[in-house]
């Protein structure tokens, strides 16, 4: 008996150390210079926690534990080696896995404890499986949309919100009933099933441009469901890790919503792109100025300060390595080149920074929107590659625009703007961009990768240095 208590104490101490390491891990993420220590601290904490748990007195059979650990490692390694462009869907998939784990453990725990489940336990257990279930399918849907195996356009139908609210309401209703009558085992699978269906329906109306917010929100749900699991299992480490993940996801979703000037409810319930048909009608063919790679190279080599504005289109065109060559060439000529990063550029928070870092562009050249916006009036050339809506001045000055009020990069204030674009088609949100018709704007029509490559060739092979 004494030995048993001592054993439990050891586990508690190990969990305490692991919790400390987890918090340090996130603290070290604050700067790129210490961030890798953060990963190591997290790994050490995880290793300690898993080994400590294996000492758990109640474990009688290690066979399935080892099978699970080995299989999971086998799936995890390829998931850790995906390309950087695929990181958003990988992240969504891992939210789904995390939620799956929590939902399964919650379900198993219910059937072990029923019918004598204390009220509080039943309440958090319900929260755990509802959040877990909807995060599981919601994240799978998000991953499918990001991987483009599902349509990226929002799918809406009449009464969508009513259906969703009714579903969520009935799941919560069942949870309340189960708290009062935990022996109603036939209702538990129904509650899980409703949560799972709700997850699918929740993501159907959400378009690709809203993915950064949605991924963050699902991240938060995954964390909260894990914290709920901690309450059910009386595990403080789980509560702490879940709370850290939940608050991290929440902060990121707030940043993302602010960057798009939209509220959570608007992202979740007001499919982007619904009211654009009205704005599209009054379009007329207006003249634009265009330029060749040779002209663009000449303008760039005459500049002192260049700001590159990359968007998701750059990543789609796989142009980041050519952009890096352009950065090198211009830097060698003494041109100051910086990159303006909009918070929602890319498909998840911070995605654009990772893509540019992968192309070996130093991170101190990647500047946040708030920091760089004041510098555009002193910028000679703003080169927009694959970004559209985040440069649209109507967000600042046209109250009738659907994106009015969204913070944008003030590229229109630069002396010269150059936009690399395939054609004049509108961006993801289907909104026309008045930037393209300005007198100091030059359109560079073509594929981003090929066009940047041509500019680099003009700059290096032109012969006159």
């Amino acid at each position, binding site marked *: 008996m004494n030995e048993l208590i001592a054993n439990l104490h050891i586990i508690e101490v190990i969990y305490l150390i692991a919790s400390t390491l987890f918090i340090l891990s996130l603290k070290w993420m604050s700067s*790129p210079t210490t961030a890798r220590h953060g990963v190591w601290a997290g790994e050490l904490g*995880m290793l300690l926690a898993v080994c400590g748990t294996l000492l758990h007195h109640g474990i009688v059979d290690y066979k399935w534990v080892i099978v*699970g650990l080995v299989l*999971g490692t086998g799936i995890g390694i390829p998931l850790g080696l995906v390309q950087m462009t695929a990181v958003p869907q990988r992240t969504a998939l*891992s939210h789904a896995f995390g939620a799956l*784990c929590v939902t399964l453990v919650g379900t198993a725990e219910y059937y072990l404890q029923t019918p004598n489940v204390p009220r509080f336990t039943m309440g958090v257990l319900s929260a755990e499986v509802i959040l877990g279930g909807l995060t599981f399918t919601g994240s799978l849907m998000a991953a499918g949309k990001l991987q483009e195996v599902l349509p990226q356009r929002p799918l809406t139908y009449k009464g969508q919100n009513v259906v969703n609210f009714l579903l969520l309401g009935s799941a919560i209703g069942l949870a309340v009933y189960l708290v009062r009558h935990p022996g109603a085992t036939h209702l538990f699978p129904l509650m899980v099933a409703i949560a799972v269906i709700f997850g699918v329906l929740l993501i159907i109306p959400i378009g690709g441009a809203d993915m950064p917010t949605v991924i963050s929100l699902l991240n938060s749900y995954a964390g909260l469901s894990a914290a709920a699991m901690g309450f059910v299992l009386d595990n403080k480490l789980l509560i702490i890790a879940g709370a850290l993940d939940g608050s991290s996801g929440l902060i990121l979703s707030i940043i993302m919503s602010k960057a798009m000037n939209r509220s959570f409810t608007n992202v979740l319930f007001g499919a982007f792109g619904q009211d654009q048909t009205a704005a599209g009608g009054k379009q007329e063919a207006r003249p634009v100025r265009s330029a060749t790679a040779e002209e663009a190279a000449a303008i760039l080599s005459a500049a002192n300060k260049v700001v590159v504005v990359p968007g998701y289109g750059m990543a789609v065109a796989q142009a980041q390595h050519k952009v890096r060559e352009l950065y090198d060439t211009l830097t060698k000529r003494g041109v100051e080149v910086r990159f303006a990063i909009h918070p929602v550029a890319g498909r998840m928070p911070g995605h654009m920074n990772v893509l540019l870092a992968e192309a070996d562009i130093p991170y101190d050249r990647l500047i946040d929107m708030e920091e760089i916006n004041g510098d555009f009036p002193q910028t000679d050339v703003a080169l927009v590659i694959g970004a559209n809506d985040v440069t649209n001045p109507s967000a600042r000055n046209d109250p009738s625009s659907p994106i009015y009020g969204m913070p944008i990069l003030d590229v229109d204030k630069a002396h010269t703007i150059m936009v690399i674009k395939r054609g004049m088609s509108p961006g993801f949100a289907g909104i026309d961009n008045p930037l393209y018709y300005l007198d100091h704007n030059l359109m560079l029509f073509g594929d981003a990768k090929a066009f940047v490559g041509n500019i680099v060739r003009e700059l290096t092979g032109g012969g006159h240095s």
Partner: protein
Amino acid sequence: MSSNLVDLLFIFMLACFIGFEVIRRVSPLLHTPLMSLTNALDAIAVVGAIVMAGEHKSTFATILGTIAIVAATSNIVGGFLITDRMLKMFKSSRPAKP
């Protein structure tokens, strides 16, 4: 060692505040690695799954527990791996820090 419910709520509340304060300071530069790291840390749920599969209280619990271990372990391994890969790519243009 069972703790009382209020203690757990205190822990949850304090951890939320620590999370907010620590993560608010993370540079937007690192938001993607941050999310993959918190994902890996969140997979600490594996400890619950290990107990569930290892205690062998019922076949049903063992099956669900084993699947849960697979899901969580893939997050741990994949999450740490990709976070480290991403962070390795972030380089400064200044040669070395003082």
